[in-house]
């Protein structure tokens, strides 16, 4: 065995052992490459009829945040399926004396209040709440917190909030790059949902707009494929040309 192959075998064994050991420490999947894996299908609490088959129920989330010197140092809560993520900054809560921790929960609501006229709820309605521990008493928010919600394919216009007195829209920011997430500053505890005007559709465009949207992608894909095929063909020809030359040398 050559030195190179011995080194190769050692690197292979060492690399596999290290990869297996490191996998357990990462929350995600293999991260060796390139194209981002598309997100899992949206998990519906009440799926539309055509999506009932294969739908997985949405998951709740909870976190317990410690209180230090009467203040919560901040922290995040997310649902098990990452469809809702909230983040509290330092001092967002005012906790009663004696509070040791604040427990926050995010739960999909199976029976949400109906949306206002002319608006439809897109996806699930989530109930967000926090209680003081021990005792389960209420906690007061002193400022808003950050909310990120995933929404299903289709249009959305804004996230709406319902604290029991009716839905009201929040200033909403859509994630860049077409990702199905929207952000808002959540003003309180209650129910949140992504919404759209009734009958709204995803904005389309003229044929030129559509061509403009897809031309760069398919142009570069064509370049990579065509150039790759040419490279492979030329390499094969080069190898074939080398074989007769080598056999001629041997004959001599």
């Amino acid at each position, binding site marked *: 065995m050559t030195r190179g192959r011995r*080194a190769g075998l050692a*690197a292979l064994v060492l690399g596999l052992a290290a*990869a*297996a050991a490191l996998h357990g420490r990462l929350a995600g999947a293999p991260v060796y490459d390139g194209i981002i894996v598309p997100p899992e299908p949206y998990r519906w609490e009440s799926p539309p009829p055509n999506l009932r088959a294969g739908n997985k129920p949405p998951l709740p989330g909870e976190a317990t945040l410690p209180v230090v010197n009467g203040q919560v140092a901040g922290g995040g809560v997310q649902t098990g399926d990452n469809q809702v993520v909230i983040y509290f900054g330092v001092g967002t809560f005012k906790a009663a004396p004696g509070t040791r921790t604040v427990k926050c929960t995010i739960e999909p609501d199976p029976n949400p209040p109906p949306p206002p006229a002319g608006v439809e709820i897109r996806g699930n309605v989530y109930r967000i709440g926090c209680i003081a521990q021990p005792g389960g008493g209420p906690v007061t928010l002193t400022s808003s917190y950050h909310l990120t919600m995933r929404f299903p394919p289709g249009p959305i216009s804004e996230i709406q909030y319902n604290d029991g007195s009716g839905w009201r829209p929040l200033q909403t920011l859509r994630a860049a790059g077409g990702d199905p997430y929207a952000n808002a500053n959540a003003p309180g505890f209650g129910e949140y949902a992504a919404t759209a005007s009734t009958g709204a559709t995803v904005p389309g465009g003229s044929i030129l707009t559509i061509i403009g949207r897809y031309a760069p992608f398919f142009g570069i894909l064509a370049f990579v494929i065509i150039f790759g095929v040419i490279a492979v063909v030329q390499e094969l020809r080069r190898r074939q040309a080398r074989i007769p030359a080598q056999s001629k040398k041997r004959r001599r």
Partner: protein
Amino acid sequence: MIQVRLAAPRRAIGLTGLIVGAALLRALLLPLGDLLSTLLFGGCLLTISWLERTAPTLPSPADGGGELPKTVGRAWSLGVGLMVGALLVAPLAGGALSARGLDGFWTWAALAALIATLEEIAIRGALYQRWRDEAGPVAAIVAGAVVFALIHLPRYGLAAMPLDAAVGLTLGGLRALTGRVLPCAVAHTIADWGAWFWA
């Protein structure tokens, strides 16, 4: 001879810089979209490998005077590639399956295979050959692992870097052991496909 050895690593380092530069370009172009920036990255790798294909190499200082190591059969090396790919996915396979199903899988899988193959042609092909010829096989394996970890840094962050380096080491070892790029491309592709089902 001394002059040759001193000059040699510069070419390998230059090629390393080109590949890392292509990854940096991809990171800068990410706001244009994942697919577009990834395909541009693939185009850069293809161009680098193409230009490097005919570049002269130097006698190896450490592996038989520049001769190629004796390569193993194609079928055997393919089998090793499949096995290594399966071993890379194995730690994930115990987890819960994702709900993605097969809708959209084949398009995604073809693109992932294309990019994985281009990365392997550039890193375990051109870059490995250059480092091996100029600094020996161990340097070639290590350089490939470092580059592999670096090019994934913008996308997956520092937390994933040790894992990417370990996988880069595995694929570099596979390249040195089999003398071929094909098994590395196969193992890399299988490992990527695992992300669809278990991520």
